[in-house]
């Protein structure tokens, strides 16, 4: 069925590398796209090219957007003194979808792990520290995973901020990371409202 340099096969192979897709579902998706060439395939290719040209990390918070400073960081209204620290952009987007948090974010881009060679400088922690004064932050909410690495990172940050700003963490037992996607808004709201002072 396939020659190696067949563009359809090449597309299937690339699609199969996407999270949540395997070779079989990639094949089905590609077939579907070809059948919907005008309605889906062409606009998708254009949208992908546009994102490839413009996507970049926000220099301030680490969110992914299409400008050097993302919309959340640009918005005056969101500079309400609350700063939510998350591991990954996916966490930020999940929080945003629920619409309950009206402050700003700081994306670390991972968790501290000496074994994986990830130290404070790999994690945008120095940038976090400098944002506290620059943006007049009054409370930092640590929304990190309940894993050892996540909690170590939370502790590391709290240790350096405790005299400078109020600190809290999301209510225990709330799974975040990819799983935040599956939580309904009510649960995220409850976790935020029940946040614990550290």
């Amino acid at each position, binding site marked *: 069925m396939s020659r190696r340099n067949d563009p359809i096969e090449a597309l299937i192979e690339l699609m199969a590398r996407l999270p949540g897709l395997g070779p079989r579902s990639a094949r089905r998706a590609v077939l579907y796209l070809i059948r919907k060439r005008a309605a889906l395939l062409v606009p998708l290719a254009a949208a992908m090219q546009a994102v490839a040209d413009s996507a970049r990390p926000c220099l301030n918070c680490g969110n992914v957007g299409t400008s050097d400073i993302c919309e959340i960081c640009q918005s005056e209204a969101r500079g309400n003194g609350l700063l939510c620290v998350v591991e990954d952009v996916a966490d930020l987007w999940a929080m945003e979808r629920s619409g309950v948090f009206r402050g700003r974010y700081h994306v670390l881009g991972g968790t501290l792990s*000496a074994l994986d060679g990830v130290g404070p400088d790999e994690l945008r922690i120095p940038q976090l520290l400098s944002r506290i004064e620059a943006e007049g932050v009054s409370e930092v909410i640590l929304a990190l995973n309940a894993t050892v690495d996540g909690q170590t990172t939370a502790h590391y940050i709290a240790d350096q901020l405790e005299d400078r700003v109020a600190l809290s963490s999301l209510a225990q037992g709330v799974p975040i990371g990819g799983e935040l996607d599956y939580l309904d808004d009510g649960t995220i709201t409850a976790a935020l409202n029940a946040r614990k002072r550290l």
Partner: protein
Amino acid sequence: MYLSRLTLSHFRSHKRVALALDARPVAIFGPNGTGKTNLIEAVSLFSPGRGLRRAAAQDMARRPESLGWKVTGEIRGATGLHEIGFVSEGGSARQVEIDGKPASQIALGRLARTLWLIPAMDRLWIEGAEGRRRFLDRTTLSFFPDHAQLALDYEKAMRERNRLLKEQVRDGHWYRALEAQMARSGAALNANRQAALLRLARAQADATTAFPAVELELVQSEGAMPETETDLRHALEESRFRDIAAGRTLVGPHRTDLYGVFAAKGVPAAESSTGEQKALLLSLILANARALAGDIGAPPILLLDEVAAHLDAGRRAALYDEICALGAQAWLTGTGPELFAELGARAQMLEVTEESGESRVSGAGSAP
């Protein structure tokens, strides 16, 4: 609790086994090398960990095919009936399924409790502390299913800290963050172990048994174990410079050892006779099982590999009586049926034979 069904597919020397079982003890007999221990190793997978040989999943795949293996079973206990399955394909780690859904080892620990005694443990009292610590933690895990997660968390935080020590990192905040994690899980780990020893002591005191009581105590290879989370955190912080020199963490529950004394004689377990040492271990397993039966309303599954052979006829009869009184599904192995004569109809018998590299299991409960 007991297994009411067990199937093995391409597990070690077994190609295909399907057993229907009742709650009685299971006596397994057959010549050396036929596959008896392999059979109870499969049962040992029903509690968290790597099983009684602590083997990798790929070593459990039947040779020479080495394709993968599958073990399934039906467990009946205080929480009802559960279908549990383990699969390993192409040398990969084994996947756990509970009632048809992928599950974690931790979830497994809440359903199934299994205790074992195998010949490799005969030298437990005289060999290194690591083996005793593992025994202690298995006992503790049987009482507290959260113990496994605490142990993993502690281990992980300690390995992170050891890496900082080796690389001579000087960031005090980083050490403090890891030491806080170690103190939290480490103090809970230690408290669980202490509580488990207390249960064992009480279970031994309350019972009339033919097996000698053991006094158990936790000892540190050096200094004393800090009792509270705060104490442990401070101890870790104080030890930091020494630890940097050593390149590893010198204080904490990973340096705890289990010290046992043959109570009636006042002699350390390590200085008791070979037979006595075995009897002390059996005594602890039985006490553990009695305590658990009280806790969760059902005795655990026991795996006693080649226990019968090392006991004289009197002790053997006493062991069988205690197992039956407990109502435990104890899986016992031995080379011949005569070793289980005293059990009579109180047990289900399985005979294991071997034919051109393939184990065969036959007996009352085996499906055709």
